[in-house]
Structures are given as C-alpha cells and as structure tokens.
C-alpha cells in the first residue's frame, strides 16, 4: 500500500479538524456544555465576590494538544485528566492569534490585547495588565496581586507604563530562579547554566540590576531565610517545582486574591529532546494538581477560589514543513495557535466541555467579570459559557 504525501496531508487535516470534544468526553466522563441550561454560576456567586480569589497558571511554555488532552497525549496528564477535569469547565478550542513568544504571549494573556513588544527585551506590556485593572478598580493593595514567573525576561510582566495605570499599580513579581541565583551567588558553573533558562534562545537572558531588595522579599514576605530557601531548592528537581514552592509560600503568607503563575519547564522542547518535553508536561501536570490541592486546603483559598490552567500557546505541527514539529513554535500554524483551557473551583460548572472557540485574550475580561472590574482597554470578549 502506498504511503504518499497526500496521506500525510490527509492525516494533518484529520488531526486539525478532529472534533475537539473527543478530547475528554470519553476519557473523563464529561458532558457537553451546549446541553446545559444557560445561566452564569457567577451570578449565583455574587455574594461571595468580595472574597473571590483567582489563580491563573500558564501550562508552559507551549504544549500541543497531541501531548496533552488529545487521546494520544492523555497518558501524560493523569492528574489533570483524572482529578481536575471532572471538576472543571473545560474549553477545548482556545486560539492565540498573537505573537508566539513566551513573554509577549504571556503579556497578551495578562492585558487582554495581542501585544507586539519585543519578546526578548526587558520591557513592560504596552497595555494595562489585569493586575492594574484589579487593583485600581477594587482598590486593592500591592500585596493582593502577585506574579510568580520563571526568569528575568518576565520581570516586567506585572504592570504597564500606561498613563492612569503604570508603575506601582500592578502586581508584584517574584522570579524564583533569580532569587536562587542571588542566594547562590558564586555558585557552580552548572547552576549558572540552569539559570540561563530562556529556552527559545538558550544562553540568553536579559540582565537585571539589583538583587538585594529581592532577597529581602524572602525574609520579609515569604518568612524564609536565604539559607532555608537554598536548602529547600536542593530538594527540588526543576525550576517549576521551585515556582510552586514559592507560590505556596505566597499563598500562606500573603494570600493574594489574584495570583498568576507562569510555568516554563515544558519549553525545554526547544532543545529538541522529545523525552524531556514529555517529562516537562508530566511534571507540570503533577504540579498543577498539587497547586489545586493547596487551594482546596488553604483556609484563605478553599471554597472561594477559581483556578485557570491554560498553555500560552501550542507548538508547531509535525506536518508543517516550515517547522520541526514539537521543537519550536515558529510557524504560526493551527497546532501552534490552538490550545485548551481548564477552569475549576468557585463558581464554575463541574465536568462540562465547551467547544465554543474562544481566544486567549478573552481571559482578562472574563476574570474581570468574575472579580468585579472592567478591563477597559482589553480587546478580548467575555467567555459567556463561563460568566
């Protein structure tokens, strides 16, 4: 039998056009959202809005359907599939129409506008962030909005420079790997390699000034000595594990109402080693479940927290000749632009799958509707199935 180029093309089309609802219906026993009586669970939850907390996790950086929620990838996400999906509203068709670099895409997620900033530069988002809207309209202190991000490239993700918003009005940003580097200054060359973690351009990370103030965060905010921090880091296997550790300390000590965690281990795929990419997905799956368990058990979060998990974008298809499959996200093809989103916790419907196409920039207005603020400059739309 012939295996020709047309068969490869047919396979591509079949993968792309696969009913995205096939994702979960059989595997996790979820129901289709269209079958439900309409009406927002958040309207019913209005009375608890003041105590509402939101945690956003970017499942990153960059994971394809076929290694996650598509049937052939489900073995890589046992925790999300078995423990979290049955409790969640699951959106199978999330597209990112913006630039597919991790910093610029995360900035777009956080502003609700497709940002066009230089992915590798140390610059602020060009539009107000969700954190600025949240704090300004709800008059929340800086301790109420935090970002935990992997590397130096994300240190300005917390706030824009837009008039009326801007410096001092956004989220506080903590970079656990940078803290680790500062805490271990003069460490080994191997560690130095670990800290240069921008996988898109290995060996390159924007330089940041300062450091002392950041180390003081450990003591003052996280109630953690530099020594204890370093010792604990020695028990962890990856930077995202370190991020989760820091996030849990933040939740315990500061209990921010808006917490944004950017995972990044998966982006090791840029090295071209498929096994490491899969390992990163499995680890992130485990860490997401661990974070959800923390939310369910921390008194400040249990019962009043909504958690969003979504990749910032996908990765290139195996069949686009311009790319090299899972390794990068450079072609802008459907596989690299299309992902999923899981929403669970307070105010969400449990065990429901939505095929309605949404965009990643819809996240900000939807969280705004949940928490009671209006992201006026966002170009995203409300996710009606959610709010």
């Amino acid at each position, binding site marked *: 039998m012939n*295996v020709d180029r047309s*068969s*490869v093309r047919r396979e591509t089309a079949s993968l792309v056009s696969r009913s995205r609802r096939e994702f979960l219906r059989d595997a996790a026993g979820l129901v289709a959202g269209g079958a439900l009586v309409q009406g927002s669970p958040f309207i019913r939850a209005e009375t608890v809005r003041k105590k509402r907390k939101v945690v956003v996790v970017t499942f990153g950086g960059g994971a394809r359907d076929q290694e996650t929620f598509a049937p052939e990838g489900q073995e890589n996400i046992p925790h999300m599939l078995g423990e979290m999906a049955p409790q969640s509203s699951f959106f199978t068709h999330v597209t990112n129409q913006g*630039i597919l670099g991790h910093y610029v895409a995360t900035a777009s997620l956080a502003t609700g506008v497709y940002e066009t900033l230089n992915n590798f530069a140390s610059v602020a988002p060009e539009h107000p962030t969700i954190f600025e809207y949240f704090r300004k309209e709800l008059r929340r202190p800086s301790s109420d909005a935090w970002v935990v991000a992997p590397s130096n490239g994300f240190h300005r993700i917390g706030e824009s420079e837009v008039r009326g918003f801007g410096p001092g009005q956004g989220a506080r940003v903590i970079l656990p790997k940078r803290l680790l580097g500062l805490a271990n200054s003069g460490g080994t060359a191997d560690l130095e390699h*670990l800290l240069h973690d921008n996988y898109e351009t290995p060996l390159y990370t924007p330089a940041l000034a300062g450091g002392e103030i950041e180390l003081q965060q450990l003591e003052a905010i996280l109630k953690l000595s530099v020594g204890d921090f370093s010792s604990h880091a020695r*028990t962890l296997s990856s930077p995202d594990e370190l991020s989760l550790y820091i996030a849990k300390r933040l939740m315990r000590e500061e209990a921010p109402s808006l917490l944004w965690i950017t995972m990044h281990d998966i982006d090791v795929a*840029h090295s071209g080693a498929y096994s490491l990419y899969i390992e990163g997905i499995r680890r992130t799956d485990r860490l997401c479940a661990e974070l959800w368990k923390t939310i369910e058990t921390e008194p400040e979060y249990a019962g009043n927290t909504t958690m969003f998990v979504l990749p910032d974008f996908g990765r290139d298809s195996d069949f686009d000749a311009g790319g090299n*499959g899972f390794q990068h996200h450079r072609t*802008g093809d459907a596989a690299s632009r299309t992902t999923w989103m899981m929403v669970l916790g307070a105010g969400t419907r449990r065990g429901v799958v939505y095929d309605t196409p949404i965009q990643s920039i819809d996240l900000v207005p939807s969280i705004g509707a949940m928490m009671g603020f209006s992201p006026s400059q966002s170009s995203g739309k409300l996710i009606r199935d959610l709010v």
Partner: protein
Amino acid sequence: MLPGDLKAESFAGYPPQARAIAVEHVEALRRLPIAFAPSLLRELIDYDYKFPIERSTIEKELRALNALSDAQRHEWFGGFESISLSPSLENFNWVNLPAQFVEQEAAYLWSTHQLDAFRKAAKDYGDRLNQLAKPESRKQRRLGIAVVGGGVATYKEPLFRILRKHGTYFTNVSTKDAFKSIVDLVERRAEADPIPYAHWYVDGGRLHPHSEHITSVSYEALAPVRDSLLKRMQSEINRPGMGPEELRTVLARLNPADLGIGADLDPVLSRFQLKLFSEGSGTQIYSTTFAQWATREVLRRAQANTLLVRYAPRQRQRPMNELLAGGRSEAELDPVGSLVDAEMGAYYHWINQQRLPGSDRSGFVAWFEGHGEAIAIGPTMPRGTESNSAIGLQELLSLVSA
C-alpha cells in the same frame, strides 16, 4: 533599496558562482516584490556551498521567473505584493544580508499580523513551482533507515506506536550482524548509483567504518566544532548590547574556518556541518537532537536517496538539585530518554522523506538496535499490521527498497 534598483554591481559581495547566477538573472530579480526577493537571495548567496540538487533547484526557479509574463508574475506574486513592510526593512541591506533580513521580516510580520498572509503567499508560490517540476527519474527508490535505542537492554513500552499504522511492525528480526548488514546495503546502493551527496550516514555517536562513496557526519567527530561554537556563543553573549537577534547575526556570518573546520575538507560539506550547529537548536548539546536535525537537513537540502541514521545515547539532563549540589561534572548518559527522542526522530525522518518527490515509491525501516523489533514502511508493506515471523534485517530492507 527596492528590487527594481538592483544592478549587476549589487552582487559584488557575493561568492563567485552566486554572483554569476545573480547577474545572469538580474532582470528577473528586479521584478520581484521586496517581501519575497530576499528569501530567494538567501538561497542564492550560498549557491557556491549548496548541494548539486539545491543548485539545480535555484537555477530552475530563476529560469521559471524569467519566463513569467507580466500577467503571470502578478498572479504568482499578488500575495507578496500586498504585504507591507516598514521603511527600516526596505532600507535594510537585504541584498548582502538576506538571511538577517528574512529574520527581521518574520518578526515584523508577526507583530503586524501579516504572517498568515505571508504563509499563504509562500505556499501558493511553492505549489506553482512544484507544478512546473518534472517527475524525477531516479534509478533507486528512496530508502530511509533509522537505528534507535543503542545501549538500552530492556524497554517495556510499546515502540514505534505512531509509525505502526503506516507499515508492518516486526517483532522477530534477527540481530546477527544487523548493523553491518545495513551499512553493507547502503554501500551497495552508493556504488550502484554513485551520485554525489545522494547516499548518507548520520551517526549520533561514533561512525561505523563505511565506504567513501557514502557522505557521513557524526556527533563525536564534530565535538571540537561544537565546543568551539559554544565558547564563541558564550563570549558573544557577554558582550555589552548583545541580544538574541545580534547573536543570530553573528552565527550566520561564521565560516567553517572560524570554528576550526579544516580548510582541506569539501567546502560544501564543511558549510553543511557548520550550519548543523549554527542554525540548529540543541544540536550542540544533545546527540539525539543532532541526529534528528541532521536527518531533516540531509533530506530537505540534499534530498538523499539513501539515508542511514543511527541514534546514540545522549547526555542526561541533570535535575536542579544535582546542579545545586555541584560536584560531578562528567556527562552521564540517558539511554532510555534517548530511545524516546529517537523514536520521535524516526517518525520525523519518515515525514521528511515523504515530503520528497517519489514518496509513493520510497521505503523506510526503523529498527530497535540489538533487539527484534522493527517497523517497515513501503509500497508493498501492509499497513497497521504486525508480523511475528522470523526475518533478517537485510531481507526486511530488501522488501521496502527493491
């Protein structure tokens, strides 16, 4: 500068053969839209270091462009003409730095949401060129062979899962002298059809002895080149003002001699080796990535008629706690992780082979080195089936390539 301003002197900085071709076709180049012309020049400027089939492709493309009427040219390039570029891009030295231009153009297209339009224009253009291509008349069917899993004693997970639906999965392949029989077959094919750069052997470790008729590259033999490149990258990164784009520009300008690749080597092959490391991501660090990327490039660029790829165990990625503990710096190997990498690499090998002309006749075998499992894909192989019959590797290769 716009393409309409091109003159013969514009190509004075090109290597001799590239310059001659550019001058010969300057009228055709002058009529191209600026959103497209640098992409063609990026290939043309390296003409002197291209494989024969790439040279032939460039010449055919230029001849086709020369022959276009005004109406046809508008039809072919309408999509590119509707792309708008910034003045800074138009003023860029795109004639002499076409690769850097294309990179900056890509960033601009992303930021102005014109990437999809560009992709469509490029795909339509490629389809039109393909329609002009004559059916190839190679003597041999194209054959790909991937050898995976060296160093893995036992592996309980199902192998070649993605490939199985495209061919027959064998579970009882004789391993006696198996790798030698593969090399023998590649040598016989090279001797029977001795086209330069048509028969390749890529090894993620050390090369097995083979005939000089086979073009070969290996991760181990290129260790000094890798080390030299990594040192250079590190030193560039530490320079003030250096960023990712600047770094890529520096890498794009490297010559084989800059990394200690001997001047006595074939200039086409030495340039190919350089690009495996300066353009590949992760090829400098993981042998499995090197083997996969080299496979992709050998097929994309040289359109190899025979390609044997042997994956070797790559170094293990050390977890954070080990790195923090310091100490051991010798590289340990990760055979099982490498097998998973290689399994995906074999799949990409087959996909890239299927992109080439004559794919309906081509054959492919992936074998778990030292074990009885193999997958065979070819016109005569049943798809999605499994065979437990005893079979030699040589016989299996004959089935897909005869």
